[in-house]
């Protein structure tokens, strides 16, 4: 790729980048949102959206390796100037791509088998018995019972399975180059691990080269040999995995590595962020830790002394344990169950058991983390804790009084004492309301003057300029919106703060700032924090205690470090092992 520039009308988004991918090489393209990494990938395959135009030159075919004599004309094809017919011939055959969102990438109205056989028939119309080729492809991506799966529709498969079908589809004709645009971002950690291994295996087996786009350093280090780091449409650094991750030259790379592995400032215990003062000489983590494969993460120091918590594991034969038992807890939960779906009188009743009996306490001032993959029941649990949903059975007491079965009128006190922060910065703020109205929403009885004063106070506390009060959500970045959401949650000075995947949707660099903000506010307001996430590292940093959930039950709970360092329950072990982390240099 030479001098690739992508612009939307007059505005340049990618400013003349150059790089090469040799045959069979696996290259990672890393950058935060807005860095132009996806635009680069899409210009290679020529599927840029209508408003965007790409200039420069992308040669595809034989890169002049040392072996070919200098004089011979490289018979490669310039993808940017190729016409639709030429591009159509090589897409899916010699050049293929896997996209990020598995749920919408397959045609919902066509059977999976047909969509797979289509890519074969387009490029190799005369292949005999395509049906067997499809079954073979499906089993090559470890999909059980391929014959039956081929007749199934996409909506009947899980996210992981669909992504594996996409992979099979991309690799069907043994492409020279596979493009992967954040293929596993939407997947759970354990599923992600399996898909990544599969991808590496397939690419090596077919001898094709790989361009892997992601914002997650850990994932890249698992998959690629070489890495290119992009920021604001420019390449800031590139090189082998080992060299870049152990001796980053560019400051942005250093900060990115620190932020993504949640490194903390040795003295303040706060996470290093992009704006950590430059003078501070970043000492690379000592070699040994990196070698041991465990990122050096030290939990920030909790404010007041915490009660001694024993490390309990759910084992089949013993009675269902009550985890994290504490006397006079902020929150007390006993045998909580919740089932969805109508069990209809006639015909099969289809019910889903979201929670199958959960009992635990949360001490006052404690930072209680809940970890689990999608479908383990953690968001249902949160809804029940905040009385936005009623349990099928079981008791919940907040600060001593029960909140189950109470009508909204009797829950006024709960609304003031417990508040919520959501995951999606886009969806948690009403686009049509000003920041002042948003933040002041929980404040019921107050004059206009008091509300304005309180809003300004909160804005300052979450590190936003007072001038933000009059603006609207679309004028802010993801990180800033999450700060507004936190300000709203603190409007009534609650005792308990519930964070539902509060940082999962943020870029790595912004994530550190928000986590630091949360730690400070928890100390300042002596909050009891219930922090839910699918990312074990984040929970380990921010929480004193962590509970691991699976299939509607808590399987293990205890102090964060001990659960992470020596997981008892096999599932927890699998979770910890599945975390992608920076490993030794490429083979």
């Amino acid at each position, binding site marked *: 790729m030479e001098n690739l520039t992508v612009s*939307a009308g007059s505005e340049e*988004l990618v400013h003349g980048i150059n790089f090469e991918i040799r045959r069979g090489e696996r290259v990672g393209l890393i950058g935060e*949102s*807005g860095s132009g990494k*996806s*635009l680069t*990938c*899409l210009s290679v395959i020529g599927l*840029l*959206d209508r*408003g*965007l135009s790409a200039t420069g030159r992308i040669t595809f075919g034989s890169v002049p390796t040392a072996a070919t004599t200098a004089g011979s004309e490289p018979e490669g094809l310039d993808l940017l100037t190729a016409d639709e017919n030429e591009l159509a011939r090589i897409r899916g055959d010699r050049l293929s791509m896997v996209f*990020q969102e598995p749920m919408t990438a397959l045609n919902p109205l066509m059977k999976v088998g047909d969509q797979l056989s289509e890519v074969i028939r387009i490029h190799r119309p005369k292949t005999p018995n395509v049906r067997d080729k499809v079954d073979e492809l499906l089993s090559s991506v470890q999909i059980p019972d391929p014959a039956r799966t081929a007749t199934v529709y996409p909506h009947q498969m899980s996210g992981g399975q669909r992504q594996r079908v996409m992979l099979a589809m991309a690799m069907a004709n043994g492409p020279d180059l596979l493009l992967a*645009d*954040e293929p596993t971002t939407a997947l759970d950690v354990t599923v992600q691990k399996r898909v990544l291994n599969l991808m590496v295996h397939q690419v090596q087996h077919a001898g094709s080269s790989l361009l892997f786009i992601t914002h997650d350093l850990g994932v890249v280090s698992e998959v690629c040999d070489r890495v290119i780091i992009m920021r604001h449409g420019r390449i800031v650094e590139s090189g082998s995995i080992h060299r870049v991750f152990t001796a980053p030259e560019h400051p942005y790379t250093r900060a990115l590595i620190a932020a993504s592995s949640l490194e903390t400032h040795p003295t*303040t215990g*706060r996470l290093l*962020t*992009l*704006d*950590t*003062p430059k003078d501070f000489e970043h000492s690379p983590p000592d070699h040994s830790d990196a070698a041991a494969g465990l990122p050096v993460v030290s939990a920030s120091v909790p404010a007041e002394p915490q009660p001694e918590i024993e490390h309990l594991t759910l084992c089949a034969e013993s009675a269902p344990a009550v985890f994290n038992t504490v006397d006079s807890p902020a929150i007390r939960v006993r045998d909580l169950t919740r089932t969805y779906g109508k069990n209809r009188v006639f015909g099969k009743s289809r019910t889903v058991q979201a929670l199958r009996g959960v009992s635990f306490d949360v001490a006052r001032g404690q930072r209680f983390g809940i970890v689990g993959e999608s479908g383990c029941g953690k968001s249902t649990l949160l809804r029940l804790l*905040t009385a*936005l949903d009623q349990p099928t059975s079981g008791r919940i007491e907040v600060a001593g009084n029960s909140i189950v079965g109470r009508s*909204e009128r009797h829950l*006024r006190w709960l*609304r*003031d004492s*417990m*508040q*919520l922060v*959501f*995951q999606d910065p886009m*969806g*948690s*703020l*009403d*686009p*049509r*309301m000003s920041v002042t109205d*948003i933040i002041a*929403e*929980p404040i*019921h009885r107050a004059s206009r003057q008091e509300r304005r004063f309180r809003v300004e106070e909160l804005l300052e506390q979450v*590190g*936003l300029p007072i001038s933000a009060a009059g603006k609207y959500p*679309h004028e802010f*970045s*993801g*990180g*800033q919106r999450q*700060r507004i*959401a936190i300000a*709203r949650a603190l*409007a009534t000075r609650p005792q308990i703060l519930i964070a539902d995947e509060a940082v999962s949707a943020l870029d790595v*660099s*912004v994530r550190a*700032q928000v986590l*630091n903000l949360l730690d*400070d506010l928890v100390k300042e307001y002596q909050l009891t924090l219930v922090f839910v996430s699918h990312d074990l590292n984040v929970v380990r940093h921010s929480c004193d205690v962590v509970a691991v959930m699976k299939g509607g039950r808590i399987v293990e709970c205890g102090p964060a470090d001990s659960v992470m360092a020596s997981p008892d329950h096999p599932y927890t072990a699998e979770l910890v092992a599945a975390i992608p982390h920076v490993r030794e240099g490429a083979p």
Partner: protein
Amino acid sequence: MSNDRAASVTTSRPPLTNGQHVRRRGGTPLVIAGGTLVSLVLVMAIVSLMWTPQDPTATDAVNRLASPSATHWLGTDGLGRDIASMVLAGSRVPLMVGLGTVAVGFTIGVPIGIVAAMTDRGAGMWLMRGNDILQAFPALLLAIVLAAVFGPSTLTAVTALGLGLAPGVARVVRSGTLQVLSREYSLAARAAGRGPLYLAVRHVLPNIRGILIVQASVGFAIAILAEAALSFLGLGTPPPAASWGRMLQDGQSVLQIAPLTILWPGMAVAVAVLGFNLLGDGLRDRFDPRMDVTR
């Protein structure tokens, strides 16, 4: 407070989601085109309140069906009335019917839609069943029976057409409200102890404002067409109030010998309806197309 808590404003523009450039605000040419046509009709109605070239009700049997001339810019109709003034004055009735229909349609449709969405489990289901029944009564059918029952009048036309519009509005508002309620800011409001009324006024209405405006413009267009059809069946606004529909009906008997008497009102109706439809389309593109739940 150490300064590193202060956020550094990394990117000013809203983040680009992986390569998909945020959609440009389309639809402006449609809004301009629709807007001009609609304002043309509004100006005609307002002007006709004060002035018309001739008295629209003055009959002059001697020179009936006269072709366009200096005094009668567009000629005269079967009773010798000046067509230009009638087209001007005739714009008032369809606009009134349009306004009335949209008003009735919205006052019934919007609350039903919101309540049905908010009580989606329980009463909402039955409310929507009732809505289906109302939708099964085509508006014009209702208008014909009501007009015949209480005598043709603008009021019966508006009630019938309003009742006809309401179920459509209710259905669209319900799906819009369901979308808003599923968003996290609604959950946050409920968690902040806010009741359904607050949710409806502060969160639902502002966010479905786009759909409402599109439904209003479509409703206006349908009402104008229906008023013309009703008058054509002799059940619309009674004489002597000039209305385009009546002019079309009167013109039908002289179609062979004086086609212009029917073409002018026909064009007027077409311009008005085209105007509202273009405006509706343009506004739909202007507001977030993602909320495009008008289907």
